[in-house]
């Protein structure tokens, strides 16, 4: 049929241009129509939930969920029964959206942020062993004589963590120190993997107390090595002081178990080397019991980690302001909401 249409055209004067154009044009047109037709006839319906989930995910393809990308995760949720709270960047919002699509109940994961457990690493607060002149990467720097810095547990400062952060949450100040923006950080864990010193750990966002060191060196050595001279020496004072036994010391290094930590800041106050930082230091309010609401149930006295609340059963309780550390544990537990913070 095509041939019979084209043959008369061959007679025209401009046939050398026209014929190839027409033939290829018709070929393209026919193929296009066949494909368009086939797309309708042979259409395979995909599960619409997959597309809905892809739409509700952030689309960063960061891989925090363990899948290759957001599309892979959506497919895994629908077809392989994957957990719905694995998307770190999406946070509670996407968990809720996916829960709605899948008809599952939302179990939002606790929002975490990455924290660099080292106070050193800048141009003016690192003690150098030698001048490293090589590939500008932490991974390569740490391979030469345990890294160019004296402390071979500490930050080498070539910003591998910043390079892998797709959310632009890690910035470097004029002294070469890294700062993690809690707002931008999605706890995807890319920097945790990138740091060859394993300095970065994910910490629940609402915690303010951090042991800012990863050194496993002992007391005199640790201080000599540390650029900021604020190392954890593993003395264990914080662990003994901790009201909830959330701190364990291993290999001369204290670590906080954030599942137990109540963010009271007591460890910060006792640390002899100031290796522990507390963003809320001095800002914690003390508990006070409103006398008219208190029914004397003793729940607060039992929960108080420092035994700062006294009072007999069925009597109005009082708070010892000196002993109160402002951990706010009692506020949440009081059935009558009789405790306020001042």
């Amino acid at each position, binding site marked *: 049929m*095509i*041939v019979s249409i084209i043959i008369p055209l061959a007679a025209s004067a401009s046939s050398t241009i026209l014929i*190839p154009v027409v*033939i*290829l044009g018709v070929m393209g047109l026919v*193929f296009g129509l066949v*494909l368009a037709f*086939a797309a309708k006839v*042979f259409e*395979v319906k995909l599960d619409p939930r997959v597309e809905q989930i892809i739409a509700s995910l952030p689309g960063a393809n960061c891989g925090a969920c363990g899948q290759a990308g957001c599309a892979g995760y959506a497919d895994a949720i629908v077809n392989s029964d994957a957990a719905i709270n694995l998307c770190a960047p999406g946070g509670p919002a996407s968990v809720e959206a996916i829960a709605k699509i899948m008809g599952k109940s939302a179990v939002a994961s606790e929002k975490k942020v990455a924290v660099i457990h080292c106070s050193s690493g800048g141009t003016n607060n690192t003690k150098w062993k030698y001048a490293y002149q090589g590939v500008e990467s932490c991974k390569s720097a740490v391979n030469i004589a345990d890294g160019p810095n004296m402390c071979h547990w500490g930050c080498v400062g070539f910003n591998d963590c910043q390079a892998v952060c797709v959310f632009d949450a890690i910035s470097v100040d004029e002294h070469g120190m890294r700062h993690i923006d809690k707002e931008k950080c999605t706890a995807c864990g890319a920097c945790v993997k990138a740091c060859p010193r394993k300095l970065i750990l994910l910490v629940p966002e609402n915690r303010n107390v951090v042991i800012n060191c990863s050194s496993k060196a002992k007391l005199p050595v640790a201080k000599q090595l540390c650029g900021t001279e604020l190392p954890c020496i593993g003395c264990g004072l914080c662990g003994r002081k901790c009201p909830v036994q959330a701190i364990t010391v291993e290999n001369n290094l204290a670590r906080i178990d954030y599942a137990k930590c109540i963010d009271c800041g007591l460890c910060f106050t006792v640390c002899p080397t100031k290796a522990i930082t507390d963003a809320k230091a001095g800002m914690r309010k003390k508990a006070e019991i409103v006398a008219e609401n208190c029914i004397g149930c003793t729940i607060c006295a039992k929960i108080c980690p420092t035994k700062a609340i006294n009072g007999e059963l069925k009597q109005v309780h009082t708070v010892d302001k000196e002993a109160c550390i402002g951990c706010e544990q009692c506020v949440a537990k009081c059935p009558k909401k009789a405790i306020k913070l001042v």
Partner: protein
Amino acid sequence: MGFLGQLFVMAISAILVQNFVLSRFLGLCPYLGVSKKLDSAFGMGMAVIFVMTLASAFCYLIFQYLLVPYGLEYLQTLAFILTIAALVQFVEMVIQKNSPALYKSLGVYLPLITTNCAVLGVAILNITPLADGSRYNFIWSVLNGFLSGVGFTFVLLAMAGIRERLELVDMPKSMRGMPSGLILAGIMALAFYGFMGMKI
């Protein structure tokens, strides 16, 4: 020579003497890229055989009945690419609908080889005049496409088999993966060079 004799000659030629990968150096991308595992190499090989056979048939028809009558042989590359791309797309849709199992096993390899030079290569070689000035007819074109695909699959599987075993070899880290793969490809090409000039 009868039909079977000719077929035998063509098979030996397409699979060993004029192997697409090792003596024509076409389709090197999947040869190195999809030869890490035997499973995926097999899937790729089947997809290549399938597409090469179909492409040979369709491109021959397009060339013989659309391009030759109007003296448009110089448009062969353009027309063949168009034909192959549309054909692979169409076949993919049909397979996805009618045979999900086959679709899963050919899977990603089908669209991958749409633009593979081996497929375009076989289509163009089919219409290229032979030493005696004649060209393959339709049947021989399709057979040549099929046998060339078999040849491709043969070396792809050989490569994948060797590479799977190389994984277990205690090799310097810098030689693992692609470097040893390239050396292997070179040695295999040298081995196939031995078939050159074979008279049947």
